[in-house]
């Protein structure tokens, strides 16, 4: 009897200790207050913008005494790494780099801390950003009357056409093109023109027409969406009814497939953005539909054989795909104030300008229009126009799953494993289900 009383007492003490520990942990995780940070941790994608910012970090560290650690990984590793941190009691990452694919998911899941109070307190002017960028990686829900600002735009990867000027202006090729099509060989204005020029280049030069990125998943979706938007197509209509299997989508698939067969390197069905860039920078392709910041990479003599021979143009057709990253603060970090301090510093005009001068992809209009920036990169004037004309994929809780479904079906079409209508019908049914699951449609 005595023994059982002793055991019960031990159990009570253990339970009390456990409860106290749980309360302490919960306090750490959910506490509204912010602790002082000695270090800030960020998960960053391995792209030029990250390395440009990394070079500037010592300035922030010297000014604040806060060490900033970048964990640099490939894009594909980021989403799962971030989610596991958001689901834990305290996030390892304090400042969050948010792709626009996740700009609907993270705020909807309550994983980001709204920036509204910080903006108000520090009178941070958000009107300096290109409005489309702020809508894409800033506000959530986009276009809703009661929306909050969860992110500040970091950099843009809006897509455009990059092409070889030496080939387009080649007198022999121009003559041949005129003879064959009774039309001028010039920067294409329609998708049909673009596909025709790519096929022509493939047949009449030693290079591929377009360094396409038709690998399954994100690569094929990003590129094909330009064809879809170029033809005025959509993923959803204004009531979140799926439109991915309408006539425009089918036409976009047909043109994309034509280009893959007649105007792309043989292995393009498995390419991602790195493969396309390698082919283009090796001088083995006439063009690529890609991220506008790739132009700076192609103009870098250390990385490219086509320096001085490339130019950028808007995506042929109506619109191109907008893309970009934003800065957010993890809701479950105790270092929110210092996380904001970092965002405020990295998005200040001075730092944003220096990032742009080093080859970054700005989202602030004042940086895109800055005289020094334009003197170094005259095409930024055109980039700003492209940014204002582009639009992102629909942003909601299940954008990543939407991209996955569409990417799978497009890859099946490109591999000739499924006919376009059947594949797009299935994608449409998946998209309708996702909109319903997100509560956006009935």
């Amino acid at each position, binding site marked *: 009897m005595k023994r059982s009383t002793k055991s019960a007492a031990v159990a009570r003490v253990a339970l009390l200790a456990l409860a106290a520990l749980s309360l302490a942990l919960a306090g750490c995780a959910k506490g509204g207050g912010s602790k002082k940070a000695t270090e800030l941790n960020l998960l960053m994608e391995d792209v030029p913008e990250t390395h440009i910012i990394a070079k500037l970090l010592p300035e922030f560290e010297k000014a604040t005494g806060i060490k900033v650690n970048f964990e640099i990984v490939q894009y594909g590793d980021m989403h799962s790494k971030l989610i596991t941190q958001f689901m834990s009691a305290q996030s390892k990452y304090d400042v969050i780099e948010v792709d626009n694919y996740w700009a609907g998911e993270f705020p909807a899941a309550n994983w980001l801390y709204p920036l509204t109070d910080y903006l108000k307190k520090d009178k941070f002017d958000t009107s300096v950003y290109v409005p489309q960028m702020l809508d894409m990686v800033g506000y959530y829900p986009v276009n809703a009357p009661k929306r909050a600002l969860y992110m500040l735009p970091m950099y843009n990867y809006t897509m455009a056409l990059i092409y070889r000027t030496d080939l387009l202006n080649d007198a022999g090729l121009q003559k041949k093109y005129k003879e064959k099509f009774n039309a001028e060989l010039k920067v294409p204005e329609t998708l049909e023109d673009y596909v025709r020029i790519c096929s022509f280049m493939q047949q009449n030069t030693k290079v591929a027409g377009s360094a396409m990125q038709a690998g399954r998943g994100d690569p094929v979706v990003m590129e094909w969406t330009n064809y879809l938007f170029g033809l005025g197509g959509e993923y959803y209509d204004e009531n979140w009814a799926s439109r991915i299997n309408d006539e425009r989508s089918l036409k976009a698939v047909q043109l994309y497939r034509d280009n893959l067969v007649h105007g792309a390197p*043989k292995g*393009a069905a*498995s390419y991602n953005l790195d493969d396309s860039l390698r082919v283009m920078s090796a001088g083995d392709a006439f063009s690529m539909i890609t991220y506008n910041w790739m132009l700076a990479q192609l103009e870098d003599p250390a990385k490219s054989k086509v320096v001085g021979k490339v130019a950028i143009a808007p995506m042929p057709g109506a619109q191109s795909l907008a893309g970009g990253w934003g800065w957010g603060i993890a809701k479950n970090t105790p270092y929110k104030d210092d996380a904001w301090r970092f965002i405020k510093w990295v998005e200040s005009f001075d730092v944003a300008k220096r990032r742009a001068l080093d080859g970054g992809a700005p989202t602030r209009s004042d940086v895109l229009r800055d005289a020094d920036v334009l003197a170094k990169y005259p095409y930024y004037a055109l980039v700003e126009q492209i940014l204002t004309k582009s639009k992102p994929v629909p942003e909601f809780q299940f954008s990543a799953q939407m991209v996955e479904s569409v990417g799978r079906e497009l890859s099946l079409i490109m591999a000739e*494993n499924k006919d376009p209508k059947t594949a797009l019908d299935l994608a449409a049914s998946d998209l309708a289900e996702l909109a319903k699951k997100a509560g956006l449609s009935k």
Partner: protein
Amino acid sequence: MKKLSKLHSRTAWRFISPTLIVLAAVVAFPLLFSFVVSFFRYTFITPKFDVFAGFDNYLFSFKDQYFWNSFKVTLIFVALVVPLEFLVGYGIALLLSRDIKFKTVFYFILTMPMVMSPVAVGLIWKMLLHPDLGIVNYLLQKMGFGYVNWFGDPRWALLAIVLIDIWQQVSFMILILLAGLTSLSKEPFESAKIDGAGPLQTLLYITTPMMLPVITVALLMRVIIAFKTYDLVYIITSGGPGVSTDIISYYIYRTTFMGLDLSQASAISFLLFVLTMAIVVVLFHQITKEKRR
């Protein structure tokens, strides 16, 4: 006597309890948690146990054509890599078990792929087999063979993944089988030699039967590991082109981190667990049948 045995038993439990607690925390709890989750509608967006789903998550998988495709691709993958790795591994282990020069150098070279991370292996082979810039296609064309679209053609992509997996995992087979070969008793071989047995007869009637327990362990371990293969597909093909390399672990990954549906992913994981266990039990039963007789 009985009292002493009880005391020993209690002491044993005291010693083993820290290990059991750690195992319960890191193995049993996650397993139990995911099993419970598979019967609810628990997602990353709404991580709650407020909607009981019964067997819906399991039934949903059965109705999904892409689940069955992943299931088929995984079975083909396992059926190709395990026997091929065994044959190659056993052959090399037999060669290395003989008295040859530079054995250490061979050991070093052959174990290198195994110590590399699958991600690094994936990236290296992705460049080597790059359809348009890779050295393999360049050499094949120089030698008069045609162009092979390794990762862009559904007919080649799974085979390419199989070959890369064999390249990396064959070291595992070699090491386990070699350890078994070097520990075999010498007497039966000497007797066989005196009786005039040739190399093939020795291999079939002496070496292989004596190696059966080691072969069983090696095959079972490789089957289990092969079912969990994920990294190579993730790095190289993302399951494409189409769904030709969409193995089940990658399907589960996508359901978890893109679909954000932990319940669905847990249900598929348990189906994979049951399937793997069933195959392991059948394989174990078949391989050891002869010995039990």
